[in-house]
């Protein structure tokens, strides 16, 4: 433009010096006029172009960034469509409110913003905002302040870029860095296709893959002989929303492992599993050692107890002639306590096996009716000692369940001996067999002292023993806990009702084979 003006001046001087006629002046005037019109036309085109460019830039910024203008009090007076979309609020819901109302509680930016605007007139940083649907969106924000002549804050203009995805990826990268430090194998895979999405360093090392080597591979590629159908059956409750996580033990590559599965929604809204595989060989070895220790100790205890019990039984049974009243009574005390010690060792061994999941059950089809008779016969002698009579009531027909014969006898023995123990001399214990929907019940009713309410809540706990055996042979305090575990391992349940000075009824319920097959 200045060049044009310089040209104009140059031309005017040229005209004054060399042209003297009016015609010449008119020519010069016309020339100058024409030239000026051309210049203003060019300027106008230039300005139009500038406006268009600015408008284009504005559109690009509108599309890219969230923008809001706030008044001196911080209330929003203008919001653009991008902010409306990102926040999920309508324009009307935003206008008039302060943006700080939408900050997450852990976002401490307002103080920094205030100080920066005061000092420098602008602030740049990150904000963590809450969407209308409760979700979070992170923004990279620049706020510029405009002040009036008196320095009072008049307006602020905020421009924000959505960095939620970047933040999420940063968080994921941090998580992955942490996962890489784990000694457990971590696998992340799509819930639908089982396609592997991530393996931590340990998992990669176990698989012998490099960091880029699992694209396109699925969970099946991680384990030889992977049973796809069995895995999908196992995780079905998770996919059905019944549970979010599960932990189970398995054998992988010949080693015992514990697998923890977690289902979660990925960023793309695609459900994925996170599996943590932990080698539990050492734990198993420790369990094995503990089990071996308990077995050895109990064996070492049983051998001397065999001698003590044997000697006492021989003497108190009169194998060497009748004993005097006092020595007989004293040896009777010794005998009862040796028997108690043996019971305790047996119970501890059972508990150890139940805890280690090592109690084996030889399941066969059993006639519960005959088993009840067997238990009654086995306990009649004990009942006689306590002057308690057992009576069979209810069903007598054949009623079959699937169970371990020896373990079920153990449960019945425990219930019958408890009932006798808590019955008064001359009392009666009824053992009833009855049908229930899909199940078979054995009820043991006694008419003893009943279980005090305070003791009822803890009855199935270890070493829980209610008083009231009337000074008779106490138990180990483990029997009911063991009985409960055994019954539950049979898919059954055990419960009781008790009234003080009226009596107690224990009910053991087992699923019948028919109900089991229907459930399957």
């Amino acid at each position, binding site marked *: 433009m200045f060049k044009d003006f310089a040209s104009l001046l140059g031309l005017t001087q040229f005209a004054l010096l060399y042209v003297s006629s009016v015609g010449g002046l008119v020519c010069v005037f016309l020339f100058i006029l024409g030239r000026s019109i051309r210049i203003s036309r060019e300027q106008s085109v230039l300005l139009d172009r500038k406006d268009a460019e600015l408008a284009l830039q504005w559109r690009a910024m509108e599309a890219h960034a969230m923008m809001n203008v706030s008044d001196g009090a911080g209330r929003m007076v203008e919001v653009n469509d991008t902010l409306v979309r990102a926040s999920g609020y309508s324009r009307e819901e935003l206008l008039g409110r302060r943006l700080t109302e939408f900050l997450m509680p852990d976002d401490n930016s307002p103080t920094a913003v205030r100080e920066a605007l005061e000092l420098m007139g602008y602030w740049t940083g990150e904000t963590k905002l809450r969407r209308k649907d409760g979700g979070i969106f992170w923004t990279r924000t620049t706020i510029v302040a405009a002040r009036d002549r008196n320095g009072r804050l008049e307006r602020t203009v905020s421009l924000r870029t959505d960095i939620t995805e970047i933040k999420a990826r940063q968080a994921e990268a941090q998580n992955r860095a942490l996962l890489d430090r784990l000694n457990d194998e971590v696998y992340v895979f799509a819930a639908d296709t089982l396609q592997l999405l991530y393996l931590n360093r340990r998992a990669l090392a176990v698989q012998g893959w490099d960091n880029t080597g699992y694209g396109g591979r699925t969970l099946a590629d991680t384990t030889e002989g992977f049973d796809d159908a069995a895995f999908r059956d196992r995780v079905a409750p998770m996919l059905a929303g019944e549970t979010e996580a599960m932990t189970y033990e398995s054998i992988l590559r010949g080693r015992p492992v514990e697998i923890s599965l977690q289902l979660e929604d990925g960023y793309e809204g695609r459900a994925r599993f996170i599996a943590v595989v932990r080698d539990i060989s050492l734990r198993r070895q420790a369990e094995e050692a503990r089990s071996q220790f308990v077995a050895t100790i109990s*064996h070492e205890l049983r051998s001397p107890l065999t001698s003590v019990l044997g000697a006492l039984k*021989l003497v108190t049974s009169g194998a060497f002639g009748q004993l005097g009243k006092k020595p007989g009574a004293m040896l009777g005390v010794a005998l009862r306590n040796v028997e108690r010690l043996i019971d305790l060792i047996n119970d501890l061994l059972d508990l150890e096996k139940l805890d280690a999941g090592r109690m*084996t059950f030889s399941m066969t089809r059993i006639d519960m009716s005959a088993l009840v008779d067997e238990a009654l016969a086995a306990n009649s002698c004990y009942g006689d000692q306590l002057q308690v009579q057992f009576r069979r009531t209810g069903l007598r027909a054949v009623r079959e369940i699937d169970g371990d014969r020896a373990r079920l006898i153990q449960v019945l023995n425990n219930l019958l001996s408890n009932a006798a123990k808590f019955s008064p001399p001359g009392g009666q214990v009824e053992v009833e067999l009855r049908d229930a929907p899909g199940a078979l019940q054995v009820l043991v009713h006694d008419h003893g002292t009943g279980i005090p309410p305070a003791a009822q809540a803890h009855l199935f706990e270890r070493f829980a023993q209610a008083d009231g055996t009337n000074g008779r042979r106490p138990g180990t305090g483990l029997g009911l806990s063991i009985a409960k575990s055994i019954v539950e391992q049979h898919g059954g349940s055990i419960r009781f009702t008790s009234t003080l000075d009226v009596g107690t009824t224990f009910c053991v319920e087992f699923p019948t084979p028919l109900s089991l097959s229907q459930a399957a």
Partner: protein
Amino acid sequence: MTQTPRILHVEDDPDIREIALVALEVVGGLTVDQCASGPEALERAPGIAPDLLLLDVMMPGMSGEDTLAGLRAMPQFANTPAIFMTAKAQPTEVEKLRQLGAAEVITKPFDPMTLADQVLAIWERSRAGG
């Protein structure tokens, strides 16, 4: 009159030997020879010519299982009924011992007043082919 078996009892614990001897001989009226170890049993068994073997399982040196294998290797004891006595009462242990050819497994501690009856019942069952 029912013929009673001659029993060879092998047990390393002298107290348990004593209890078992009283239980079988005094209470049960049976004839019992006792050995304190597997090797002793293998040496004396041909001379004793027992009808029934009663073997402790856990013995130092030669176990009850090995003792039975040694006796079975002698033709005269290839089919002699054997009973194991063990303090390991786990069903899996009991099953393992049965598979070794034991007619029965008696768990410790045993009842000395009924031991002889138990042993006789097992012997009768074995003779009957059970």
